[in-house]
């Protein structure tokens, strides 16, 4: 049995504070990484296995264009208050 009085739990010895802005930034980075890796893998498959340069070029260009518009939308939204 301890002979000292119990001390109340005062929490962790460090403070964690995550702002909405920081969380949004980290989510953006994670999504961008996912998008970049996924796109790179898919483009590699188009180039190596599609056997049709015209279709592959068109598919890649359309994907990059639509993704670019959406990324712009995301970044503009992130910069808004």
């Amino acid at each position, binding site marked *: 049995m301890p002979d000292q009085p119990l001390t109340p739990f005062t929490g962790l010895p460090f403070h964690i504070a995550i702002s909405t802005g920081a969380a949004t930034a980290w989510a953006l980075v994670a999504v961008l990484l996912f998008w970049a890796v996924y*796109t790179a893998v898919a483009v590699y498959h188009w180039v190596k296995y599609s056997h049709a340069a015209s279709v592959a070029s068109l598919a890649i260009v359309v994907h990059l264009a639509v993704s670019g518009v959406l990324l712009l939308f995301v970044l503009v*939204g992130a910069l808004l208050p």
Partner: protein
Amino acid sequence: MTIPFFHPSNLTREFELEPGEVVLAEVRKHWFVFTLELLPFAIIAVLPFAFAPLLSIAPPLANYANLASFGTGIGRTVLGIWLLIVWTSAWGAFTRYYLNVWVLTNLRVMEVIQHNYFHREVSSVLLNRVQDVTTEVKGALFSLLNIGNIHVQSAGTVDEFHMDGIGGPAALRDIILKKVSEQSKTDGV
């Protein structure tokens, strides 16, 4: 000017055609079947726009409808991220649709199955090994659009080639059987 990635030598590396071998047809799933596969992505894409109206018609949850508003910066960011993920996934589905293909030549049938990006299966059967070609068309809509499945059974193998949801399966079967017949005559069978 030739783009290095798309140089013909890169594009033909996977299929080395034999001398005198020509590609007769490349067969993929019918566009209607692919459109059906895209439907879940379309539904997922519009979900955020339906979220706020759905919340507002449920009185206990109506106060939370503002959270689903896209007028704020965070709302637009979340919506953009959502749409980017859905779009990238749908484009990935199109990539897999295009990479899953049957290549019919005058000597063989090649089947390419792209299970996922890191699981690719390429197999072929010589036409003189083909024993049976079966087609089936099921359902009213698929009968109207002439969409069905085709199975090719070869000699000496348990597995058979099969592709579901292609357009004009009977026509493809006729082409295969015609080429099989020509091969048999050439081989003197």
